[in-house]
């Protein structure tokens, strides 16, 4: 059990060794699992921007304009919402190669409460043309995504959680691409699309569903934009129904993206297991998962619903 935060930190160190154009900027996060490893090896390429997220994003733009590869790290609540104008104006519209890393996203802010539990960040980033969005589900894929994000020519938003998660399993290097997804379990009963911590819930749900005679196909949609459309559509063709699980508001996230894809290419019943357009409260991340209804149980329930609705 390791966090995606530390996985990305490990990936950054590997990249930092290989190329000297990688610059880490952070909003007063010295000591964080993502910052410390890189900062201790490459202090000259680590910049603490203080709690000035807007300035950090414009500074990243300046570095990118001069050919550097800035990686800007801040809690997702502030990086995407407070600095939204800077991200849009200075990175997205000019299509600059910079990596924005949102930490403590979703429920992992736990006890900090509603303000810090950022369940709107994907929506904010998704509406900006040109930004790619990555949401790793485990340590190893998060580490690999550091490379993926760095090598992409345009801006990338990476959403990381603070909590330790199980390993999702080995992945094929060819799956690790912008616009990619991982087919974790094959099945023809129902398609389960998930990202981040919800991948593990989807895997649990798939085990229960198989006991009930429904073979779920599980896709780790780690790239939310561009969506792994082919992988999803070919699955929908086989299963004819879909449940999408994400640690994000129902509005603007993976659920809507998959539903829109299905509606235009292959209409099938699609249900969403997500935060139902509300704010949270303080609690441990696990308690909050129950509170918001983001567990395998909801996925199993919705799967049974769409399975019965599918056309035969």
């Amino acid at each position, binding site marked *: 059990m390791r966090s995606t935060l530390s996985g990305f930190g490990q990936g950054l160190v590997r990249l930092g060794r290989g190329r000297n154009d990688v610059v880490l900027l952070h909003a007063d996060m010295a000591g964080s699992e993502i910052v410390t490893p890189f900062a201790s090896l490459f202090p000259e390429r680590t910049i603490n921007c203080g709690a000035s997220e807007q300035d950090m994003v414009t500074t990243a733009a300046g570095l990118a304009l001069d050919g550097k590869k800035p990686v800007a790290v801040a809690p997702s609540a502030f990086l995407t919402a407070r600095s939204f104008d*800077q991200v849009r104006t*200075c990175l997205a519209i000019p299509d600059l190669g910079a990596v924005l890393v949102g930490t403590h996203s979703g429920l992992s802010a736990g006890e900090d409460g509603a303000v810090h539990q950022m369940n709107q960040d994907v929506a904010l980033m998704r509406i900006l043309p040109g930004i790619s969005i990555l949401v790793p589900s485990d340590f190893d894929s998060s580490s690999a995504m550091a490379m993926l994000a760095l090598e992409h020519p345009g801006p990338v938003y990476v959403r990381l959680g603070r909590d330790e998660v199980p390993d999702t399993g080995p992945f094929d290097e060819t799956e690790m691409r912008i616009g990619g997804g991982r087919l974790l379990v094959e099945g023809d009963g129902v398609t389960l699309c998930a990202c981040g911590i919800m991948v593990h819930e989807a895997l649990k749900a798939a085990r229960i569903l198989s006991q009930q005679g429904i073979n779920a196909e599980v896709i780790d949609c780690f790239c939310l934009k561009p969506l792994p459309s082919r992988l999803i559509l070919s699955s929908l063709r086989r299963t004819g129904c879909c449940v999408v699980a994400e640690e994000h508001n129902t509005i603007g996230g993976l659920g809507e993206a998959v539903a829109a894809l299905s509606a235009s290419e292959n209409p099938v019943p699609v249900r969403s297991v997500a935060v139902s357009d509300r704010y949270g409260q303080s609690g441990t991340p696990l308690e909050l998962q129950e509170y918001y209804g983001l567990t395998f149980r909801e996925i199993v329930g919705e799967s049974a619903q769409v399975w019965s609705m599918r056309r035969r």
Partner: protein
Amino acid sequence: MKASQRRELERTALEVRKDIVRMTGVSRAGHLDSSLSVVDILVYLYWKVLKIRPDEPLWPERDRLVFSKDNASPALYAVLARRGFFEREELWNYRRLGAMLQGRPEHARTPGVDAPGGSRGMAIGIAKGLLLSSRMDGNDRRVFCVIGSEELQEGSLWESVLRASILGFEGLTVVVDSSAPPSAPALTPGKGASERKRFETLGWRVMEADGHNFDHLERALSRAHSDPGGIPRVILARTIPGKGVSSAEKGSLEKPGRLLDRNGMEQALRELELASGEMEEGVKP
């Protein structure tokens, strides 16, 4: 500054002003008054200060200029065209669909534009990134920002002002185009003092200059660079909106476009022609 040099700059500035009147007249867009106020600052920087190669806009060793004065892109474009970064013909397509010259500067579209502009208060942050990058590469590039005084109201700008002094930036010079009608100068003692104080409190070196006087600009900018290191500098340049075109200076432009009508445009061009003529007269022995 030698009188001949000054005259040359003044002549250039007049030509730039004519182009601004023409391009805002043709496109019926872009703010004439805030474009005219910043002309002399840009002319001085582009002809006397910046290390640039117009025929090689992406020359890696060049100094950078981040321009974020809102509504004043005609001034930047007219200067870049006259400095030789692109054909002057492009000016007449300003703001048209598909044009090289967008309403707000875009570095990927326009040779000579170093950074994206268009949203207030972001220039100093971008400049910081450009300087950090050159520091890492071990070169001594300088970065200049030209911003409008209205940007001093943006909170995000002050984040960057503070961070720039914490990082101890040498080689960063910000010129604030502090324009206000002559009747209400932007830098009245009270207000100017508070602008000065705000920058000084945050660790900046502050200079003031008449933004239409090339000797003043020379003094301020050369002092900015002879200063011993580690301190970012700001020049508060007093300017007059609409400078050079009397109807614009009087603030009688048609709002909200702040434009001249056809007659007004012809009159403004005549006025600027007359000024050029008088200058030539003055040169004769």
